[in-house]
């Protein structure tokens, strides 16, 4: 296949599929979101087919920042350690202003320590995709069709018919469900006549990923108005294999093609890093961005996930991480519908929760963008006031917004949550993601796995769900000092003796009780599973 797109790993076109074949689930798109969706369903034993327009894994670093929550999801999918082993771990961000080499603001993205995973890893998108493709190769129930492009679609109430163009010819398929993970220019979205709502930003940014030997730390460094890019912003971030992400704000009304040419990129790189450095081009790209989403992500039997459904600016790493949150939310719900254990309307909870996530990501991304590129005289004055105050006064530093980085989103109004009976709770509320903690020589999230679980501090009798009893941990805490106690499950979930907390298959808290009973737990599970209580 000749596309002009640089190749990271050649795979070659898959043979033409059987014309008229019927599938249970078709995933369109083989980026990090589509491949992770496939892996989630594959591990549940579902047959799944993936269409990849390209017949190779594309080079170009693209999405490089993967959050703790994404690593937790990938742990559940069995590839978390492979990602961490290949990636660069980081927790710290620094923000600089003007010529000063002293940061005006530093932030630690993992304020709660003693969790298995770091705040972030940086990893080129092609490495992520390669790890996922290799993991999927273990599953005979997965069929990735390389070089196969969806070109037509007929969505009905009970399924979807599609036409696929492959190098060996055209064929048709029908599927009960179609998951569109085909990115910001989604063919599926376009063919269905659907669009985004929200804001488009006109500023231009240059990504200059370069390969060089450097001694900079594995931290996110961000500059406002640096001498090497006056009046604009810049970012520097470490990737594996001596690759560095450099990002330069370019401003409006520029020639985008010209800005990407090496003779125009290299002076910027040398101004930033010094005339004497030696480097090679890894990937240059100019981008603009949007903060928008579809009005709904569930359209009958067509489900949208990732960039096909929502777009944000890259400052905050909320694109790919937001997409991984989608598939994590969708997998267990779709399985229940496929098994006939929940009605199709259960997927409305995916629509609700994934839109909650998208809206939080869009809100944060829009605010960061307004700080980075002020749109009015007053906005610029306040931005500069914050930057000028931040050096001298600690109070101003939290106002500095160089991107609020992706964290797991809570669903405070989720229809799947059961409200607290008691008002004296600290800890993790229903609708919030489970917090990791050291547990039993391992980690809590790893112990939870991917089903409904009850974390209890002393459970008596039968339970309608597997119980992880932390009473033993509670008994030994008096042997530790207070810092040690604070990191225990009991403290993190505020589990006083007798209390219990119900965890969903996607490791979100569904309900919690001071006086749990089997009946209350069963009712909460029924609610969380979309079965009318």
């Amino acid at each position, binding site marked *: 296949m000749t596309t002009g797109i640089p190749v990271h790993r050649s795979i070659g076109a898959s043979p033409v599929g059987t014309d008229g074949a019927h599938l249970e689930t078709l995933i369109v798109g083989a980026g990090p979101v589509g491949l992770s969706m496939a892996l989630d369903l594959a591990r549940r034993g579902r047959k799944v087919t993936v269409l990849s327009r390209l017949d190779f894994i594309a080079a170009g670093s693209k999405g490089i920042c993967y959050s703790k929550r994404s690593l937790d999801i990938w742990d559940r999918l069995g590839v978390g350690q492979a990602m961490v082993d290949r990636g660069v771990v980081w927790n710290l961000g620094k923000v600089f202003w003007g010529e000063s080499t002293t940061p005006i603001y530093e932030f630690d993205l993992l304020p709660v320590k003693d969790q298995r995973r770091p705040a972030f890893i940086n990893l080129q998108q092609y490495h992520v995709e390669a790890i996922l493709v290799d993991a999927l190769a273990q599953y005979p129930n997965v069929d990735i069709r390389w070089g196969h492009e969806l070109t037509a679609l007929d969505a009905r109430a009970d399924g979807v018919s599609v036409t696929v163009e492959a190098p060996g010819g055209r064929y048709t398929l029908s599927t009960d469900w179609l998951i569109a993970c085909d990115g910001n220019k989604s063919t599926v979205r376009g063919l269905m006549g659907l669009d985004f709502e929200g804001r488009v930003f006109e500023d231009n940014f240059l990504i200059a990923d370069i390969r060089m030997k450097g001694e900079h730390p594995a931290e996110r460094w961000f500059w406002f108005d640096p001498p090497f890019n006056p009046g604009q912003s810049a970012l520097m971030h470490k990737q594996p294999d001596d690759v560095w992400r450099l990002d330069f704000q370019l401003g409006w009304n520029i020639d985008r093609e010209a800005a990407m040419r090496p003779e125009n990129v290299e002076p910027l790189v040398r101004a930033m890093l010094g005339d004497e450095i030696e480097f090679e081009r890894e990937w240059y790209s100019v981008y603009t961005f949007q903060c928008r989403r579809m009005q709904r992500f569930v359209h009958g039997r067509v489900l949208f996930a990732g960039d096909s459904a929502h777009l944000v600016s890259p400052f905050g790493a909320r694109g790919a991480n937001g997409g991984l949150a989608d598939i994590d939310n969708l997998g267990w719900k779709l399985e229940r519908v496929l098994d006939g254990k929940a009605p199709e309307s259960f997927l409305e909870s995916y629509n609700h929760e994934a839109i909650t996530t998208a809206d939080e990501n869009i809100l944060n991304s829009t605010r960061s963008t307004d700080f980075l590129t002020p749109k009015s005289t007053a906005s610029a*004055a306040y931005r500069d*006031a914050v930057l000028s105050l931040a050096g001298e006064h600690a109070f*101003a530093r939290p106002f500095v917004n160089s991107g609020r980085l992706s964290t797991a989103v809570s669903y405070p109004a989720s229809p799947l949550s059961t409200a607290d009976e008691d008002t004296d709770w600290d800890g993790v509320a229903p609708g919030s993601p489970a917090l990791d903690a050291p547990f039993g020589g391992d980690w809590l999230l790893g112990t939870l796995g991917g089903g409904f679980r009850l974390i209890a501090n002393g459970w008596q009798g039968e339970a309608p769900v597997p119980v992880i009893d932390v009473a033993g941990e509670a008994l030994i805490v008096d042997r530790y000092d207070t810092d040690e106690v604070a990191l225990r499950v009991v403290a993190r979930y505020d589990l006083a003796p007798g209390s219990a907390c119900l965890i969903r298959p996607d490791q979100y808290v569904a309900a919690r009780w001071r006086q749990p009973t089997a009946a209350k737990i069963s009712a909460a599970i029924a609610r969380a599973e979309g079965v009318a209580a």
Partner: protein
Amino acid sequence: MSLETKPNVARPDDIYEAMIAAQAGMSEAESLRFSARLILLLINQIGNDALVKDAIEAAREPAPIPAAGSGPRA
């Protein structure tokens, strides 16, 4: 706590003069930045989001300002 809109400053003329004097000789841009710094310091001092949002609402002018000479004279 609700937004204080009754007199709460001991010597209004003194503090008013100090604020004007601090911006004497500034360009509009410098004055805007000074005011932004001042407001951010005061927002932090207040330390209450709801109160600051009430103040933002109170700062909006309720109706177009009457043209000079058209209003009643004191």
